Structures are given as C-alpha cells and as structure tokens.
C-alpha cells in the first residue's frame, strides 16, 4: 500500500465510531430494550427482583430460539409463516411416535428431528423450484400443518392432546436436555436460556465469519447478483429453511418435555412473534440486512413486555397494542437506516 492509506484511515477515526454504531442493525432494538427496561423498573416494583429476571429471560428464550433462524431467513430475503405450527408438529411427532411404538423417548425425538427437517426442506425446495413468493408457499405449509396436527392427533389419540409420556423410558434424560432448570448465582434459570444464547452465538458466527453467512446476506440483498458471481442461491435458501426447522425441533422438544402432553392446536400465531422479534431487532423485511443479536434483543423486549405488564398488575390486553406499536416504530427506524445505507452518489 502507498503512503496515502494510513492517512485515509485517520480521516475515519473522528466520525468512524459514531457512524459505525449508527450503522449497526441492532441499534434501534438496544435503545428500545433499554427504554422498556427502565420503564418497567419504574412502574413495576417486582420487575427488578432476580426471580423476575429469570421469568423474563425464560419468556424471551422461548421466542428467541425461533427468532434466531427466522432472522437469518429474513436476512436471506424470505419468510416462514409455518414456523409457529412447525414447533407443535415437532412436539406431536416426538410424543406420538414414542407412545404408539412404545419406544424410548429418544427414538421419538430423533424421528421428530427427521420429520421437522423434512418439512423445512419442503418449504425451501418448493420455494426455489416454483419461484412463488415465500409468503404463499409457507402459508400453504402453515395451513397444511395446522390441519395435520389436529387431524392426526384426533385420529391417533382420540382427543386434541397427546397422551402423557412422562413415565416412559428416556423421558427424564430428554427432559434434562430440553426442559431442566439450573441454579446459577442463586437465580433459577431454564435450560432454554442456554439454548437461546448458544444459538445466537452460533448464528452470529455463521453470519459474520463464514462463507455461508456472506451468502445469506447476498441472496437476500441481491439474489441475481449473487447467482452471477457463483453463489449457490437455492442451496442457501433451502439451508435457511432447514435451520428454521432445526430450531422448531428444539422448541418443540422443550414444549413436550416441560408439559409432558402437547395440545395439537398450539403454535398458531407464534410465527408472527418470531418475525416481530427479528424485525424489532433490525432485520429488513426486504432482506439483506439484520443480525442474530438483534433478534435476541427483540425477543428480550418481547419477554420484558409480556411479563412486565403482569408485574405492573395491568390488564394484559394492552400487551398486543404495545407489541404492535413497537413493531411500527422499529420498522420506521429500519427504513430510515436502509435509506442511509443505500443512498447512492
């Protein structure tokens, strides 16, 4: 490099840090999270207790585990409306397979993984083959899974919920993995919090430091350009749908192991909570921009709000209004960020 290069770097130091911070996708969400935290700390006295933190984190993690792959998918330019019911499907398959075959619970857990990944593959395959919008493809999957969940459960169990598998072989060890409690520093924490943080770290690593991550940004930000320079666009998208399925499997197993029985109608509507967490966390609806950490902050805002309203002893009816307002604000902020980022010339 020539002598001008270090000089060029120096020009940056003054405004560079501020600009880089403003350019982070998580910025809006972090500011929002801080505001929500301060707000509930003031209006709800029990909010700052350690046990409350544990409850808030647990609520955040159940959404957060799914918000991570949904955020990656959104960065890749697609939606998955079937993500909510896929969690239920995964739990139902696991439970009913073990019960009907009187097999070890782990066998059901394994079968469930295969089935759920197959659903994810189906979503991605249909999308890349038909070139239809993911909204339509996954809306179709959403409806089909909703019907299958109810239909199969009634057919096999005779009721809308599964039989208990709590006394079956392998249940206790599966429960340890998916639904146990840990006590760290006197605070009781659900194991899902560890799953959540682990997934956020893994997804961040993939996004920022691997070729696959580069491809995810590229297929969402400009699929044609990506294809022209040799990025395997279809494989990347199918992989993203299978990542959603993998996390749906984790969530589904947690659901099963913590309640022992599964209600077949559950999960409907949760797909929007995942998308909201990802969008509040800075993902652009149009793809190509966002972060896994942002989705975690979005999920944390969700957790704080849903539990904070309870601690403040308000009518929980207000929760959805609050969530909607957050979503609008976040999207406006993101649109503004994108305009800055894309402003050419």
């Amino acid at each position: 490099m020539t002598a001008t290069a270090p000089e060029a770097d120096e020009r940056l130091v003054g405004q560079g840090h501020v600009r880089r911070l403003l350019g982070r996708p998580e910025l809006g969400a972090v500011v929002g999270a801080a505001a929500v935290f301060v707000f509930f700390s003031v209006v709800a006295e029990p909010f700052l207790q350690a046990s409350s933190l544990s409850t808030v984190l647990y609520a955040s993690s159940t959404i957060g585990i799914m918000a991570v792959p949904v955020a990656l998918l959104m960065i890749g330019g697609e939606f998955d409306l079937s993500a909510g019911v896929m969690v239920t499907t995964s739990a139902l398959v696991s439970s009913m397979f073990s019960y009907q075959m009187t097999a070890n619970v782990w066998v059901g857990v394994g079968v469930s993984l295969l089935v759920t990944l197959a659903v994810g593959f189906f979503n991605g395959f249909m999308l890349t083959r038909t070139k239809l919008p993911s909204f339509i493809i996954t809306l179709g999957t959403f409806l089909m899974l909703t019907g299958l969940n109810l239909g199969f459960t009634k057919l096999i169990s005779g009721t809308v919920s599964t039989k208990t598998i709590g006394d079956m072989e392998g249940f206790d060890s599966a429960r340890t993995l998916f639904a146990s409690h840990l006590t760290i520093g006197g605070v009781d924490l659900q194991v899902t919090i560890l799953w959540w943080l682990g997934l956020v770290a893994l997804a961040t690593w993939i996004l920022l430091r691997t070729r696959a991550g580069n491809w995810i940004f590229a297929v969402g930000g400009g699929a044609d350009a990506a294809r022209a320079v040799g990025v395997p666009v279809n494989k990347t998208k199918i992989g993203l749908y299978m990542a959603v399925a993998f996390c749906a499997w984790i969530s589904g197993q947690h659901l099963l192991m913590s309640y022992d029985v599964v209600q077949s109608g559950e999960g409907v509507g949760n797909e929007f909570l995942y998308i909201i967490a990802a969008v509040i966390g800075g993902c652009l609806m149009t793809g190509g921009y966002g972060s896994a950490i942002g989705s975690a902050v979005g999920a944390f805002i969700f957790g704080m709000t849903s539990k904070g309203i309870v601690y403040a002893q308000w009518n929980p009816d207000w929760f959805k209004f609050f969530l909607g307002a957050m979503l609008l604000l976040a999207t406006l902020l993101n649109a503004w960020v994108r305009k800055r980022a894309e402003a050419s010339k």
Partner: protein
Amino acid sequence: MNDDAANDDAALVRLTDVSKFYGNIRALEGVSLEVHAGEITCVLGDNGAGKSTLIKIIAGLHQHDAGTFAIDGEETRLASPREALDRGIATVYQDLAVVPLMPVWRNFFLGSEPTTGAGPFKRLDVRKMRETTRAELLRMGIDLRDVDQPIGTLSGGERQCVAIARAVYFGAKVLVLDEPTAALGVKQSGVVLKYVAAARDAGLGVVLITHNPHHAYLVGDRFVLLKRGAMAGSHAKSEIALDELTRQMAGGSELDQLSHELERATSGEG
C-alpha cells in the same frame, strides 16, 4: 496494440458464425468475433440488436444453437456462469454487479471468499479480504475511505470499477462488460473507460458492449457491429474512422437525417 492480431490462433475467445434462436425467433445469426489478450473488442449495436444475447452466450447463461465458440482455440459449450468463470471469462453486468447493502470488501470476494482454519473453525479470512480489497482498489486508483461502507453508497462509476477490479484480481483472462457507461455521466464514463483501459494494459482481453460509438472508439481495438441480430460489420481500428463507425451504426437512410441534425446542432452552438 495489434501485434497479437497477426497470430490468429492467439485468440482467447473466438466466436464463428454463432446463432441463437428462441423458439422461432432469431435472436442472433452468423455472428463472428474474436478477443485477444491486451485488446478491447467492442460490440456495438442499438437496442434489440442482439447484444445481450451475445453476452449471455459468452457468459455461459445461454448456449448457442449454431456456429462455434472456442476458448483458447478449444471448441466449447458453456453449461453455466460458474463454468465460464472457471475458464477465465468474467462478466460484469450493468445492474447485477453487486449487492448494494453489503460492505465493499464482502462484495469484492462474494462467491469466492478466502477462508482460514479447518473443520468447525473454518472461517472467512476477514483481514486478508479487507486488506486485499483496499490494495486492489488503490491499484486501480480508487482510494476508499472505508471498505466497510455498503457498496450502494459508492457512485455508479465506482461500483463498475470495483466489479472490474474484482474480475482482474480473480484472474479473469477475458472481461465482458455489459454497457458499463450506459447509466453514467460524461465524467464518470471517462473514469470507467480509464479502468477498462487499465484492465487491457494488465493483459486481459476485453469485450466492451455499448451503444455509444464515441466511447467505443476511445478504447477499442476491434469493432463488431450488430443489427437486428445479424452482423453488420467487423473492423480493426486501423481500418475505420469514428465518423464511419458512427455512420455504420446509424446505418443507411437514417444517417442523412442524423448528420443533418448534428450539423445543425454544431452550427447552432458555434
């Protein structure tokens, strides 16, 4: 510049009587063209002349239906853009060159990212990517303040240059440029043409697709004229003057009208 032309076997890419049909529509018929190392072959034609069909054949997006397509003297039928890239043919499309929201350095290496480490720790060589991007752009005369800025914040001309620098860095032997100056102002066009010339001086064979004979004549060594899918002329620079090139592009009866208008405009200004 035309030294290589004496030796006809030295052509990096040679198209002979190439045709392409979409159903019963003749998109291209009997087009011949050669690209030599260190030379710029310009493909000129108006809208609908078959320029994009030609580019798609060379880039591996479409296959030709008749004629021969030889790379380094070896007859070829490209199956995909990836294969074209592997054979040393890099195409820079007018709009498809980059992903606007991604940083410059990520765009520079997109699709061919260098990695370091092994197994689960295999990761992007971010340091190398950043430094190489900065150095390669500097070599072409672009001094970026920050390779982390989204490439969408660069000017149209700069983006073209990044795409050209990328193709040069990845060892392209043949660079195909689709209307690189079409959407640019006079000054930006000049900048881009400078980089096209820089790529030529680096020893690449360049195919410059354009509808602007003035831009073509500034840098071109050979000129292939397309009209309604067929070849309307093929000239070395020594054989043709700018006036004649423009005349042939405008063609026949349309020309009188055009020169009339041009003369009026000139006398009006003067």
